[in-house]
Structure formats: structure tokens, C-alpha cells
């Protein structure tokens, strides 16, 4: 069924084309549920095939789909690359590609260049009331693309893509801005550790600007908090230079409003990043204040955060002592 549907991906009638794409999305979703990966050998849809050398190979829905991805991507992207393609069609196309990556992560490696140019064309347009959903779909797909493909696949496309993504980061539309932050989160995670990339500084500054502004939308704020954590984990050199003592944490670690996202980010950074004694003590002080807030919501997370911070505190002291000892030994030598 899949090859027949793919052969009609470029159907002349647009409504028919969209119906076919929607059908293919359903097929992909079903493949994901019942496709029979290597761990479900006995599931429905597994077919034995004898190769010329006499050995048996198993044909699952996944392997069949994998073999059809090049034709699928070519047919679909040909429809999307035209500048005259209406936003609804583009959105449906990105929806299909997004679903494909959920079923077969990393399956669009050979199409990175074309995907980047289509994304650039879409994101270069300012999001209007009608096209903001397209921007969101495009950004969601790009997040998925970055997190499911190896960096060499898309590193050549980054000079094309990052400027428009940075522009989208500053958009007023809260969902568009949130998805742009998420796209950068995926990118940071994929490229970790990052050194000497200009766009990292812009991301940092935009995040700090959003966090410092009290009028920032809650979702955008949450994504900005998340990306501060990503920057500390994936681009420590940049934040240590730009951070100037961690001004971003003054905005992340606030006592009023919702603090659940901030607690999680602090916990993650305390657990995984290279942090200083001063930073730990500041965060312990902040978390202690959160314990005084009334209500039970989020208290369990605050306790976990404090546990990690206090454990790191000792580790950090031990490292300092070791550094002092090593320095002292060197001096003696």
C-alpha cells in the first residue's frame, strides 16, 4: 500500500493530495504501534524472505518502510519546495515528516540540505495569524530532525538555518518563540560540547532578555529556563564568559510566580554541569526560601534539588582541595 500512496503524493488535486498524506500519517502511526521491530519478532507483519545465499532475513514493516523513505522524501519535498505551495499544504507536509521521524529516527539524512532551504523559506516570513501554525510545525519538525540525526548530517546547513531560527527566537508569538527555543535546545544537545559558535551567544542573550522581562509568557519563560540549563551543559565556555557570575540565574531563581521549571533546571545543572561553590550556595539559599512557600505543590522537587545541591557541595569542596594540593605539590617540585 505504501508505494501506491507515495506514487500519488504529487496528485494534481490538492484536497486529494492532503487526504493521501493524512492516510500515510495514519499508516506511519500504525507502523509505529504494530510494525514489529527486532524486539517483537513474532508480531503481525513479519515476513521471512530467503536471500540468494540461502539465509533467511526478516522483513518487518520497519525495514519495508526504510527502503521506501528515499522515494517518499523525494516526492514529498518536491511538493514542499515550491514557493507557491499554500501554508496548509506545507503544514501537512511537515506533519508527515515529523511523524516519519518518530517512526524511523534519522531516516532523512540525505535530505538535510533541501529541508534546510524549505525551512528557511518558511521561517523567513513573519508569522501571521494564519501562518503561525505552519511556523510551529516547521520548528517542531526541525527540533526532531536535530535530535534524531547525527551532527555531520546537518552541520553544512546550519549557516543557512541558524539566522532564521535566531530571528524566530525573538518573535512575539509565544508558541512560535517557545518552539524556537526548543529547536535550539535540540541543536545544543546534538552538538554538545559546543565551542566558538556565534549563535550560542545570541541564544544566551535572548534567553536572558526573556527571563528578565516580567511580562514574558509562561511557556516562553519555561523554555528560556530550560535553554539556560542546556547552555550550561552543552556550551559551558560561552556561559562562563557571557554569564559574568551567572546573571541568568538571578532571573531563573526567582521566589515569586511558578518555580517548578526553574527547580528542575537547577537540579539538572547541579547534577550534570561543572558548577562553583558560590553557585551551589546561592541555589541552596533560593531552594530554602521555596520551602517556606505555602502548599505542597512542587515541594518534592525542591527536596530533590536540595539533595543534589548539597551532594555537589561536598564534591566541589573536594575538587578545590585536590587542586590546592596539586598546586602545592607543583610549587614544592
Amino acid at each position: 500500500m505504501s508505494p501506491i500512496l507515495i506514487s500519488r503524493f504529487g496528485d494534481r488535486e490538492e484536497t486529494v493530495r492532503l487526504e493521501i498524506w493524512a492516510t500515510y500519517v495514519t499508516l506511519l502511526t500504525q507502523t509505529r504501534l504494530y510494525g514489529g521491530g527486532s524486539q517483537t519478532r513474532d508480531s503481525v507483519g513479519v515476513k521471512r524472505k530467503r536471500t540468494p545465499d540461502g539465509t533467511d532475513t526478516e522483513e518487518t514493516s520497519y525495514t519495508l518502510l526504510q527502503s521506501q523513505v528515499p522515494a517518499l522524501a523525494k516526492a514529498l519535498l518536491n511538493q514542499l519546495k515550491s514557493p507557491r505551495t499554500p501554508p496548509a499544504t506545507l503544514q501537512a507536509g511537515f506533519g508527515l515528516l515529523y511523524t516519519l521521524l518518530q517512526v524511523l529516527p534519522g531516516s532523512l539524512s540525505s535530505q538535510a540540505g533541501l529541508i534546510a532551504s524549505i525551512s528557511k523559506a518558511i521561517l523567513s516570513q513573519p508569522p501571521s495569524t494564519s501562518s503561525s501554525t505552519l511556523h510551529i510545525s516547521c520548528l517542531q519538525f526541525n527540533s526532531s530532525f536535530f535530535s534524531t540525526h547525527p551532527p555531520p548530517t546537518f552541520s553544512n546547513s546550519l549557516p543557512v538555518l541558524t539566522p532564521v531560527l535566531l530571528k524566530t527566537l525573538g518573535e512575539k508569538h509565544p508558541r512560535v518563540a517557545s518552539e524556537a527555543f526548543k529547536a535550539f535546545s535540540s541543536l545544543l544537545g546534538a552538538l554538545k560540547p559546543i565551542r566558538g559558535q556565534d549563535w550560542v551567544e545570541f541564544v544566551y542573550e535572548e534567553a536572558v532578555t526573556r527571563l528578565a522581562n516580567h511580562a514574558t509568557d509562561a511557556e516562553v519563560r519555561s523554555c528560556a529556563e530550560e535553554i539556560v540549563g542546556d547552555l550550561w551543559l552543552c556550551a559551558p565556555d560561552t556561559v562562563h564568559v557571557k554569564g559574568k557570575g551567572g546573571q541568568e540565574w538571578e532571573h531563573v531563581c526567582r521566589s515569586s510566580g511558578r518555580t517548578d521549571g526553574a527547580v528542575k533546571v537547577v537540579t539538572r545543572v547541579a547534577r550534570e554541569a561543572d558548577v562553583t561553590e558560590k553557585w551551589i550556595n546561592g541555589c541552596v539559599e533560593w531552594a530554602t526560601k521555596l520551602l517556606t512557600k505555602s502548599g505542597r505543590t512542587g515541594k518534592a522537587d525542591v527536596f530533590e534539588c536540595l539533595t543534589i545541591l548539597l551532594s555537589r557541595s561536598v564534591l566541589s569542596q573536594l575538587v578545590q582541595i585536590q587542586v590546592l594540593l596539586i598546586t602545592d605539590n607543583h610549587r614544592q617540585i
Partner: protein
Amino acid sequence: MPANLLRSLIPQLKSYVSTTDISLQSQALSLFALLLQLSPKSTFPEVEREVLEDVYNIAYSPHTSGAALDSVLAFFGALVEADFQIATHVVSSLTRGTPEKAKEVSYPNVAKCVAQVVKSYQALAAGVIAEFSKTLKVRPQVVMLFRLTPFTETFGSTRPLHCSSDSWGDWSFHVRLDPTRQANGHSKSTRSDMSPQQEVFNGAIELFASDQEDVRTAAAFAAGQPFFLSLSSHNLTSSLPGNIAIGNLNLFLPFIVHLVKQDDSKRLLALHALKEVVTHTSTSHLENLAETLWVPLFENSESADESSRGVAAACIGKLITTHPARYLPQVHVCRPEFFLC
């Protein structure tokens, strides 16, 4: 950790040390334990002054179980390790405390807390055993009862004994320390190391006839322990002359097997004792025991009593793992229904 941070953190954490919200209370106690480990000198005085009394009440509470009890144990462990001098005080406070309603005291919890204190400060073990022994008239039962009787006396409860088998393991750990230390340190004779175990064993067997089910259960659990202890001490003292393990094995095991074979009234409890032996014995030791245990256990797997069948089957399963090629075909031929599930 800066002192001012501790000063602000401890009162905040203290407000969660209550039975109002057990989950948060558990996390708060775990944090106190962590603070006591990280900066014992500065945390200990504050905790002793501000928090300790409340933790006693939490330890008494029957609602304290699972993760919450684990955090209480971690707290007592860290507290004692922060300053060993408090260990005696904690043990006496835990056992001398007199809540208004004795029914609201979880004796197993208190026993576990005392055990934790002794584990964290093992030098206290001999003293605690001696202290509790004083209150007991029947010496052979000291090990099993010293975690039980003092509480009933001090709390003035009419219930003579309250116990659960799982608490027993905590005490057995400490009993094991004594013979090992004696054997390593002062070259005491094998016989003198074995004799306390003989007394404990006899005391446990006597309690098989108790009219209280939980006491009988604890006694069955206890009866299985001497083997565990002796086998463990064999591991620890294998370089010493004489073989403590085999000596004790010859001494205790035939009696238990005899009970399984001959005594209808004590059969189930004796099987539970065998289960303890089988469960806690290493595979290499179990290989030696397997032949002795196989026949009585296999016979009981056909017993009319469902509980006996269940315990025997559990033991048989473990025995099979010692020599599958030998035992599995026997089970396959004689008890094919074992393979149905």
C-alpha cells in the same frame, strides 16, 4: 557549607518532620541525614536540639513504613556516625520512651531503629546485648527477645511479645559479630563460640509452641539463623583451625530435619526455618546441604497442608539451582504438575 545557610535550612526542614505528610517528612529526614554526613560538626548540635525528639515520635508511628522508615533509619545511622557518643542515649530514648497509647507504638520500627544505631556504632553491640539481657530471665532467648521484651516492659503494654520476622535479621547481624571478633581476636575455643548459638537455637525451638502466631513466626525465622550465622562465620574465619561451620551444621540441622519429618505440630515452622537456611546459604554451601534437605522437602511438597507445600516448593526451587542436572529430572518425573505453570 556556610553556617548561615545551615541556620536557615534546618528550621525549614524541621517544619516537615511531622506525620502530617509522610512523603515530604521522608525527604526532609533524608536531607537531615545528608547534612549530618556532609557537615557533622555544625549540623549535629542543631539536629540534636531541634529535631531528634520529633524523629523519635515518627519512629514510634505505625504509619512509618517503607521509604519513610528507610529515611528514619538513614537519619539515625547518620546521627550516630556524626557523634558516636549519642548512640547510647538514642537507644535508651527509643526504648524508654513512653507514648501515651502503647497501641500506637510500632515495636518492629523501634527494633529496627535500635538495630540501625548498633550497626552504625558496632562498639555498642556488646553493651546493648548485655543491657537488654539484664531484663530477661531466660538467657537462651536473649537474642530473640531482647529486641521485644524491653519494649513491652517499658511501655507497660499487656502484650508480652510483638515481633515480625523481618526485624530479626537486623539483630542476627550483630550476633554474628561476636563469635567472629572473639575468634579473630582472642582465639577462643570453637565450643565457646558455638554455645551461645546453641542456647539461642533451643530458645527458638521452645517458642515454636507459643500461642501467638507472630512469636511462632519469629521463632521459625530465628531457628534458621544459626546456620546462616555459622556459615557466614565460616567464611570469615576459614583460616582458623577447626571448622565452625561444619560443627554447627552437624549440631543444628539434624534437629530441624527431625522436626520436619516427625513432629506434625511443628512441621510448618520447621519448614520455615529450613527456608531461612536455604535462602541465606551461599550456593557452594547449599551444595553440601542439598542431599540432607532434599528428601524431607520433597516429601512435604506432597503434603495436604497448602502452606507446607508452598514453603517446601520454594526450598526445592532453590535446591534445584545447586545441581539442576541431578534434581530437575527427579522433579520432572515425580511432580510433573510443577511444570504446568
